[in-house]
């Protein structure tokens, strides 16, 4: 006790600075550290699945239709839920997704929307997260460029 009293100022400084540093680094946002790790599935494309692959997915699937009025529910398995894209990060919905035990599948008319929400949810630490797409060739170039061999550039 005597030591504590003698160096109480020192201990207080250490404890307060430790608390501040940890608070700042661990709770600055809802996102996990090491963004690269949480984005890894998107580098290989293993996070994107087709309707056929969805049928083969095992476990308790939570399918989410990212539309304002549930327009895409018919494309999703039974038990699917629908949320407007802007509400996905609301505490209630986020908690429901995080507490789900099994694959979570995101679907939107616009693939850009489901891709962005995949990245956001993934960065919060959500695993077994998939983007459902109607066609798997979104990132495949569908046109062939034909060079003009007659071009004479003025250099």
């Amino acid at each position, binding site marked *: 006790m005597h030591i504590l009293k003698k*160096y109480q100022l020192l201990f207080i400084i250490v404890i307060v600075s430790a608390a501040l540093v940890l608070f700042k680094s661990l709770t600055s*946002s809802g996102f996990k550290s090491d963004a690269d790790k949480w984005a890894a599935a998107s580098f290989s494309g293993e996070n994107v699945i087709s309707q056929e692959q969805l049928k083969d997915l095992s476990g308790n699937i939570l399918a989410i239709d990212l539309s304002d009025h549930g327009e895409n529910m018919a494309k999703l398995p039974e038990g699917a839920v629908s949320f407007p894209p*802007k509400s996905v990060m609301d505490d209630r919905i986020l908690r429901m997704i995080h507490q789900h035990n099994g694959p979570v599948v995101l679907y939107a008319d616009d693939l850009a929307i489901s891709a*962005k929400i995949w990245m956001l949810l993934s960065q919060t630490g959500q695993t077994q997260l998939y983007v459902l797409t109607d066609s798997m060739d979104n*990132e495949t170039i569908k046109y062939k460029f034909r060079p003009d061999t007659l071009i004479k*550039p003025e250099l």
Partner: protein
Amino acid sequence: MNPRIVFSILLGSFGLILAFLPSPGTARLTENPKTLLYQSIEKSAYFSVDQVARFVVSEDSTVLLVDLRNPIDFKQVSIPGSINIPYNQLLNKETNLESYFADNKKRVIFYSNGDLYSGYALVLARGLGFANSYSMKGGLNEWFSTVMNSAFTGDRISARENALFETRTRAKKYFTEINSLPDSLKLQFAQKSSFDPKKLDGGCE
């Protein structure tokens, strides 16, 4: 208490703090998740291919186009003025992403063949605090469909349609010129044809 013990306690405490900190160099999204979601999916986060065509034709120096495809695809064909950062290397330390966003007035526009990679990249960049990042809606597939395959059909054309068609035609011509060149000449041609923004600013050094 012995000062050496006090010093050891202090050192140990700071060591513990450091141990709990995320390792340096690992990126972490710092924006508020809800704000980031709104910012990422609103229309102002996109540029259409026609808007990008206008930037290309006018050689807008406030825009930086970032092609997220692999280097082989980038070499074969890319939008004039683009730089290549393969999506899977976006967060690499070597990429030094912040260097592209150093100029706040510069708009950094991501594109790939479709909407997937540019969507991911936009969230990552904005999440890391780079608010001047955007994506090109539809990617190169939309660019080919709208700009490269543009054709006028009909009897009448409004002034607006005419301006749009003219921009597309000029962008198509520039795109074809650049991408028809051998790799060794592409950079040389782009540098030669690009304007010096200082000339427009009207200032002298």
